[in-house]
């Protein structure tokens, strides 16, 4: 089957290795991947900061770009939540009938990565090998927005060699919150401090999640403190095999 | 101030586009509205909940009620009790100083050691005792000022769930007090302290009148 990859603006620029991992993983599973080079951003940053008109124009662009895609895979729960939760409101004004129709037709074809694997492909064993101690952080958009539920756990359970350690207070926000991390940098850091404590208590070598936004925030602090834990996106773990381990892992 | 009244109502009407319906619409009431326990299960639950909040609970048959009450009163070590005017006379065991509330002052009630009342209903799920302040339950102040309260509850008036209590009310009560624990506060460091205001000692006699 074919699928179109929406890499997300920040993954494209800051975490291309996550994108490469998604490609490796999905192609290994037999998906014919497309990448529409017209893509930029889903509009979340603007929408969440209150710049609604700007968010609308980005949302409209997204819908037009992917009208004909068979399936759109997005390795970011916050972007998928934006599309599902906020696009309807953005397109609600009268005069957007055509756009609304296109969006409604598009919506069932939008998948977050773990949703695509479990729901669309019906697989939880993706043939991954990652012999490390790992803990999983439940990003708020995935947890409460998308209700990803146990999908990431089912996927992690089938990764050979992986030792999963439960994270305490797993459902407590890490403090990133988009522009919140800048506008309220001190409170964001206070929340991060508590989350770091929970992560480090697991003594895991890797902290993973479905969102690089949380991981950028967590990983940035872990790096600052010379902590013995690193972050990486779940896609990188799932893409990792014995012959082709995840990038940057010895 | 009728100006404010009109302005507020006008603002509200503009905000809700003036629409009003004449009857209460169909609300989704899919919550539990009936218990699943049988009579003895209900009773056991009521006892368990009452004991969880340190109420002293005993059961008795209807004929044994006066004797059971006398026993409770004797073991309290107290002497002066205030009672509502509608309390059955046979409940007033001899040997105690009974103050019938026919308009007692707060000071007179304050001077009593305890109070004895009937009750309207019990809700087992939360261990709630319901007072509708009838003649046998008394004015609200009676069950508030004294430190010791003996409450008579008939098992036929115990329901399992809160919605079933509402089923019991023929009409909504004008006055009601719902007691589900001793007075408590957790305002200092979340440490639960009991007995702030209101009776610190609650004794309940469950009369098995529906055996």
């Amino acid at each position, binding site marked *: 089957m074919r699928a179109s990859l929406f890499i997300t603006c920040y993954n494209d620029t800051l975490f291309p290795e996550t994108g490469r991992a998604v490609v490796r993983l999905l192609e290994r599973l037999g998906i*014919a991947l497309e990448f529409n080079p017209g893509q930029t951003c889903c509009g979340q940053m603007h929408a969440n900061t209150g710049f609604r008109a700007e968010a609308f124009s980005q949302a409209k662009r997204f819908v037009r770009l992917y009208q004909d895609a068979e399936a759109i895979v997005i390795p970011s729960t916050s972007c998928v939540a934006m599309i599902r939760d906020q696009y309807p409101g953005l397109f609600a004004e009268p005069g957007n009938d055509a756009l609304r129709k296109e969006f409604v037709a598009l919506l069932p074809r939008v998948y977050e990565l773990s949703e695509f694997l479990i729901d669309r492909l019906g697989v939880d064993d993706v043939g991954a090998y990652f012999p490390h101690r790992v803990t999983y952080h439940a990003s708020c958009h995935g947890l409460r927005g998308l209700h990803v539920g146990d999908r990431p756990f089912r996927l992690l359970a089938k990764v050979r060699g992986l030792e999963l350690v439960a994270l305490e207070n797993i459902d407590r926000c890490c403090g990133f919150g988009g522009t919140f991390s800048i506008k309220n940098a001190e409170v964001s850091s206070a929340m991060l401090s508590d989350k770091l404590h929970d992560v480090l208590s697991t003594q895991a070598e890797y902290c993973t999640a479905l969102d690089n936004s949380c991981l950028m925030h967590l990983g940035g602090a872990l790096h600052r403190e010379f902590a013995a834990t690193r972050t990486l996106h779940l896609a990188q773990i799932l893409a990792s095999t014995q012959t082709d381990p995840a990038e940057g892992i010895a | 101030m009728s100006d404010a009244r009109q302005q507020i109502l006008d603002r509200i009407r503009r905000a809700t586009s003036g629409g*009003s319906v004449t009857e209460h619409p169909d609300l989704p009431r899919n919550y539990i509205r009936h218990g699943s326990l049988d009579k003895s299960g209900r009773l056991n639950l009521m006892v368990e909940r009452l004991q969880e909040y340190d109420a002293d609970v005993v059961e008795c048959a209807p004929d044994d009620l006066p004797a059971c009450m006398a026993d409770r009163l004797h073991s309290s070590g107290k002497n002066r009790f205030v009672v509502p005017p509608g309390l059955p006379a046979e409940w007033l065991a001899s040997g105690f100083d009974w103050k019938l509330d026919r308009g007692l002052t707060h000071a007179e009630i304050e001077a009593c050691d305890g109070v004895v009342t009937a009750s309207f209903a019990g809700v087992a799920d939360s261990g709630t005792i319901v007072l509708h302040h009838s003649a046998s339950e008394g004015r609200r102040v009676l069950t508030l000022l004294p430190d010791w309260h003996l409450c008579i509850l008939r098992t036929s008036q115990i329901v399992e769930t809160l919605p079933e209590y509402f089923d019991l009310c023929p009409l909504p009560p004008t006055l009601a007090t719902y007691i*589900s624990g001793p007075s408590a506060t957790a305002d*200092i460091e979340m440490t639960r302290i009991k007995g702030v205001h209101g009776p610190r000692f609650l004794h309940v006699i469950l009369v098995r009148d529906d055996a």
Partner: protein
Amino acid sequence: MMQVDLDPRTALPFPQAALPILRNTQLRKNVAHATDVIQAKRARLVAEKTDWQALRNAAAAIKDDVLGHLDRYLVEFEARCTAAGGHVHWASDAAEARSIIVEILRTEKATEAIKIKTMTSAEIQLNPALEAAGIKAVETDLAELILQLGEDEPSHIVAPALHVNRSQVREIFARRMGRTDLTDDPQALTAAARSYLRRKFLSVDTAICGANFMVAETGAVTIVESEGNGRMCLTLPRTLIALAGIEKLVPIFRDLEVMLQVLARSATGERMNPYTSLWTGVTPGDGPQNFHVVLLDNGRSSILARHTERQTLRCIRCAACQNTCPVYRQTGGHAYGSVYGGPIGAILTPQLMHMDHAQSLPYASSLCAACYEVCPVKINIPEVLIELRAQVVDRERKQAARAFDLMYIGMRVANSIFASAWRFRLAQRLGRIGLRLFTKKDGWIHALPSLGARWTMTRDLRGLPDQTFRDWWASRPKDRV
């Protein structure tokens, strides 16, 4: 005790107000402990309630029905309450409410008034107005008493003194009650408060309360409490004044079977709180014979008019949102500069101010939605927060000063970049080149200037990779399937 400003018109914006509080490790510990305790109790009881979601749905529907027909229910309540001997007053704003209450007390020649905790009275700044009129307000709720004697402000809707620890309470009681004999044992402190207040209950003839639920069908008022000070204030005095927001209604008595179940579990993690009182107007011989209700608008009718924001008024003041909020957990209520803090405060306060003040509050959230998950009346707080942010920006955009505001400039530039793929690619290249200046040998950025410094103050940032994903994709052999 730090000077705390809970007047949204003058309080510092949230980020600034939070700063000194974040350095108050004792307060942070108290808040974390308190919220953890209540959260755990709530979670346990909600888990055992198999019809919890059905109750939430019903509670939200009941409140939406009230809001959709608010004029009708208010008029019905007024008629029933009046028929039962009560007096109903209407106040458009805080000043009117204060004036009505002072007038009633003056008529009764009251010099003192005992009070049950009511956030609404703090909202209208009632106590200073009473003081100015020569009437001493005596708070009887233990937490409110602690705050009043300590000249402090509430930091939580249900447990207002949760930022105060036992030795602070001991010190306050020693200084203000003259009780220098007390230990810091909560039991002893509570006993001291009990005897201090008992004298007041038995001697003060006027009381002021709020209302948890007013029943339109019968004109009854319901108050939910734990300590018993409520029953004291509602029963012993001759004059009772209930101050309530216009939204504090339920249509019929029966609706309490839903509201009481969700409120107790959400607020204190109990199946039912110790004492709930219900009374209707005046009952001869039982309780206050002079009863007044003051219905307060103070901005609520404006909120009612707005489609997305109306749900704010479903709130039953349980504070479950505060207890679960990871932001509130770090700061407590004082950082919000309002008597209403936490998630509900972030949406209610600016709206009560007609969006003229407290504009930083809708941004005092990471949009994690934990609040929405626990709200017993299903207020989608994140949805309202985002809507209010849009309103703040729509207002601010028009101001000339925003032309120089980095955040506004940045957002406009970003939008223009996202509008076209080639501009996006160009921005990626320029960004990579620009950030190279700050990228150290280890490939990481440790310090950035300007807005970037807000990130790098506590976090490193990995330098931008040499090749973006789209460039890597474009460089792949074209004959791949």
